[in-house]
């Protein structure tokens, strides 16, 4: 058997997998997206994103995703710096602590927060016991942002950690040696050198946040509709697969754009650890 043939044979299961579970579903979404119930070609499904209630959901989803991404970034950067700084042996344990929750079921974790954050939930019970003012966060956009930050923070920490760990200690020392103080060194050297990690971190938080419907369902109390919820309802409740697919295609454009941006900056694949 020639070498090429062997390669082809080895690749066969993966080609099959991609065809059956990636390419075919994608085509089905595209097909449903550009046809109506009678199978006639139409762009109404895609155009219906312009309807006020859809625009509102899309805009809210983008808004909350951006807020969550920014919060994740502001929390993850110092954290990643601490992880890199404090010893190689110890930091792997610390890194583990952040990856560990990811091993638990995503739904389960979010439902746990539902119970914790409820008006009669665990947190309020503790606050009540301590005679502190109660919080009313459940079923608000704030709770959704909270859920997003909680669930997606590790996706921001890891690429940042990877790109920070790559910086040669002597590059930082060189900047100090040339007269830069700590603040100048951070903004002129550390931050620019971690742009690939920042970009992939942003993509890895922004994309799932933009499309989520589970977090908004559980922590937003189904009152706050994100674009993900609208699409989900078209599939599971209204049974209008055509409209759901059309809206999905619109959402896909946003995802592809952020993927391209991330790919341009992250040539070294800082995010590829995940």
């Amino acid at each position, binding site marked *: 058997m020639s070498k090429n043939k062997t390669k082809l044979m080895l690749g066969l299961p993966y080609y099959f997998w991609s065809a059956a579970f990636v390419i075919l579903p994608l085509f089905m979404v595209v097909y449903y997206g550009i046809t109506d119930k009678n199978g006639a070609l139409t762009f109404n499904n895609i155009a219906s994103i312009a309807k006020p209630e859809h625009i509102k959901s899309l805009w809210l989803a983008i808004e909350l995703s951006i807020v969550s991404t920014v919060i994740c970034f502001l929390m993850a950067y110092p954290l990643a710096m601490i992880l890199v700084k404090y010893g190689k042996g110890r930091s792997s344990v610390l890194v583990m602590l952040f990856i560990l929750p990811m091993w638990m079921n995503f739904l389960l974790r979010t439902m746990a927060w539902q119970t914790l954050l409820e008006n009669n939930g665990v947190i309020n019970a503790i606050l009540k016991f301590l005679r502190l003012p109660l919080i009313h966060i459940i079923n608000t956009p704030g709770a959704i942002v909270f859920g997003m930050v909680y669930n997606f923070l590790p996706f921001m920490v890891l690429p940042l950690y990877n790109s920070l760990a790559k910086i*040669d200690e*002597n*590059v930082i*020392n*060189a900047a100090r*040696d*040339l007269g830069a103080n700590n603040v100048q060194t951070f903004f002129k050297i550390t931050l620019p050198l971690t742009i690939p990690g920042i970009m992939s971190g942003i993509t890895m938080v922004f994309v799932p946040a933009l499309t989520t419907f589970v977090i908004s369902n559980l922590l937003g109390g189904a009152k706050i509709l994100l674009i993900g919820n609208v699409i989900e309802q078209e599939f599971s409740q209204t049974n209008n697969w055509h409209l759901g697919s059309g809206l999905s295609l619109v959402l896909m454009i946003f995802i592809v754009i952020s993927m391209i941006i991330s790919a341009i900056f992250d040539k070294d694949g800082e995010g590829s650890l995940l």
Partner: protein
Amino acid sequence: MSSELIYLKNITKSFDGQTVLDDLTLYIKENEFLTLLGPSGCGKTTTLRIIGGFEEPDKGVVLFDGKDITALPPNKRQLNTVFQKYALFTHMTIAENIAFGLKIKGKTKSYIDDKIKYALKLVNLDGYENRMPSTLSGGQQQRIAIARAIVNEPKVLLLDEPLGALDLKLRQDMQYELIRLKNELGITFVYVTHDQEEALTMSDTIVVMNQGYIQQIGSPEKIYNEPENAFVADFIGDSNIVDGLMIQDELVEIFGTRFACVDKGFGNNKPVDVVIRPEDVELVDPDKGQLTGTVTHLIFKGVHYEMEVTTPNGYEWLVHSTTCFPVGIEVGITVKPFNIQIMNKPASEDEEAVHVEE
């Protein structure tokens, strides 16, 4: 004395309970090319990092021009460092790299532009302003690292094994380049290396270090020709270190034969170490030699032949000679008196790291 630019006084430093530097005292004079030489783990890089301000000593004081700078952060010191593996800013162009320190100091644009031109000319890389570091070879990157340091007009340039990552030919070229730079700039160079040849080629003063102690300080000639202990003799070049008995001043007995030498003051009938460089061992006809032995090994090295001559007591002498003596032949060995270097025997194993103060 005003010529002592840097004075390290009783410096002690340990990491995780392991002592890296033990009560080290060292002067560095203005305009000298001083090399810290030693095997890895001897404390030479730590010494450099203490001078640069990247480590603080546990005990001791660092004086710069008479002022105490022990606790001063690196960005406030009047010296610059050239790091191992260059440490260039990969997200900046060559010009931006060189301008970094000057921009921080708030120099005018025309001043900075002039300096970039001057520095690139000095390291023979004119016209590289807009290249990115990753497009340069290792040797070129190292020159940029030097240019980036010297535009700040430091009083002292610290170099941490700057040629370690380069191949042999390039390393030799860069050695000449560094000597030229030092002479043109007229500043003090403190150079760290484990390469004894590099140290001998470039330095005015060599500080041989081992296990956190200074073994010997001196000019390259002095270090090579008159090593003070077995460690220095062994580390600087190849050498034959044999047991000897100092019969009296200027007379030493080696393997039962008495050799005239030039050293005195070791006492009478005292066991000593004798160092003889391989190129100082002369091979002659067996009947003309002070010792006789058999050639047991022969390699052609280009400039000379490297031979091993085994004497009847089993010692293998390392010999460098331009004359070839084939394996198996019996030869005589002679050594001229001034080529015999006598050293005190270390009193214990620790004494191999004996603290020698100038």
